[in-house]
């Protein structure tokens, strides 16, 4: 009996010590993890827009985050957009604008959030639920960054996830104000190395650059080898101005598939097609509503 008690006692003590060590490590590393994740996304975003450490972003540039939610109340559903208010640079708070499924304005609620706390999923959801949520199911859908320079829109950055050949592929897509593609980066994927993983290579990603919105809406994938001059331009083997010329020549062509990875190529192209079309549709509605309701936003 005494042995049993000693065992239990010692085991409990060990568990407690182990738990403390792990808990402390968790608290310590969690902050670092969030910072690193955010830094990585920021780096990708800047490089998509053409900036880097050598060419930093100008002061006049603003990145405004719009978060989309789906609100379900019993049988009816509305789409809610969490938009920042005021002019660029001012921290005038956020507003949750609701639009019904037919594209008509429903209502808007002011939400108490700061520019920092809005980035954290937990804080954001809590603030929205507090201001608004009784009895409603509010689900986060996706987020978009609208980039402005001197108040004029220069780019849209969309993050999206879609099924790939293996599991899923997550990307950040950059569109210009006319919804043509500026570029995209693959954030996560589990494709096969050497086959599907080649979607991260320049000669695949750069094929999407400069494609106009009209072409994106009907984008297909062809199983043919990439012409040599196009390949050189995509991989950056010729000087930049000439490369851009060549790439623009192929603007209205379909995407050349990766060798041995047709399904992954189709997955990425369909994913981008879907993301762009849905975004264009939704942004038009949101702009119309914001203008009708005279809601002042920095973009």
């Amino acid at each position, binding site marked *: 009996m005494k042995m049993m008690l000693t065992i239990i006692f*010692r085991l409990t003590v060990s568990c407690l010590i*182990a738990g403390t*060590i792990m808990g402390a*490590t968790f608290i310590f*590393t*969690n902050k670092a993890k969030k910072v*690193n994740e955010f830094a990585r996304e920021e780096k990708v975003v800047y490089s998509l827009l053409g900036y880097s450490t050598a060419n930093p972003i100008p002061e006049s540039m603003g990145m405004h985050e719009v978060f989309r939610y789906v609100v379900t109340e019993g049988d009816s559903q509305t789409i809610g957009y969490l938009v920042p208010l005021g002019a660029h640079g001012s921290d005038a708070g956020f507003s949750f604008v609701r639009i019904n499924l037919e594209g008509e304005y429903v209502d808007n609620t002011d939400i108490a959030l700061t520019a920092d706390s809005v980035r954290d999923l937990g804080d954001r959801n809590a603030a929205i639920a507090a201001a608004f949520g009784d009895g409603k199911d509010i689900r986060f859908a996706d987020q978009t960054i609208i980039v402005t320079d001197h108040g004029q829109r220069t780019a849209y950055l969309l993050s999206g996830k879609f099924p790939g050949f293996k599991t899923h592929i997550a990307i950040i897509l950059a569109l210009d104000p006319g919804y043509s593609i500026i570029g995209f980066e693959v954030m*996560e994927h589990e494709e096969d*190395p*050497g086959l599907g993983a080649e979607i991260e290579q320049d000669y695949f990603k750069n094929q999407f650059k400069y494609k106009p919105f009209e072409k994106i809406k009907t984008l297909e994938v062809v199983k043919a080898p990439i012409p040599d001059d196009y390949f050189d331009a995509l991989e950056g083997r010729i000087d930049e101005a000439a490369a851009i010329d060549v790439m623009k020549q192929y603007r209205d062509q379909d995407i050349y598939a990766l060798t041995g990875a047709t399904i992954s190529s189709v997955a990425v192209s369909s994913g981008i097609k879907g993301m762009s079309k849905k975004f264009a549709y939704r942004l038009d509605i949101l702009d119309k509503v914001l203008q009708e309701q005279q809601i002042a936003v920095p973009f």
Partner: protein
Amino acid sequence: MANKKSNFQLVANGILQENPIFKLALSMCPAVGISTTVMNGVMLGIAVLFVQVFSSVTISLLKDFIHPRIRIPTYTLTIATWVTVIDLSLAAYFPAAYAQMGIFVKIIVAFAIITMRLEMFASKEPITASFWDGIGMGLGFLVGMVAIGFIRELLGSGAILGHDVLGFKPLLFFILPSAGFFVVGLMMGFFNWIETYYARRKRGEA
């Protein structure tokens, strides 16, 4: 059994005579699974080294406190704690490299090698000996992983540590997952052959 080896001998033992991957044939899962690049090998090797050393030292410190009937659960608890610590740290400070390794860092907890080492060595030997033995085993694992990773990365993508060395990709096959089996099998066979060769020479000369 407790012949007093010097600390250096303990470390060398871990790398050569009792190399976890090639000699003891334990913890082979990562050797096959993620040894596609040298970087992966280094990162996982460091993780295993960390867990092995800290677990050995902890158990050696607590060897009088542990009741013999619950020693296996205690080992498991210790290893799991340190694996959680290194897993959280790697995820926070090296996210890109950590993403490459998938769940293999968490799987360190199931490595038979660490538990066996604790059972056979750390629970009986003093702290410094356990420390150096842990380093030896960890380094042995690291060396093994790097060796396999070196061959696979060089022959598969023509690069080492991400730097293009050959300028072309000899055989994509080597970085495809199933090649891990072949490379490890061939290397093991090779090591065996070297050993028998030297043993024969020694016998021939003696």
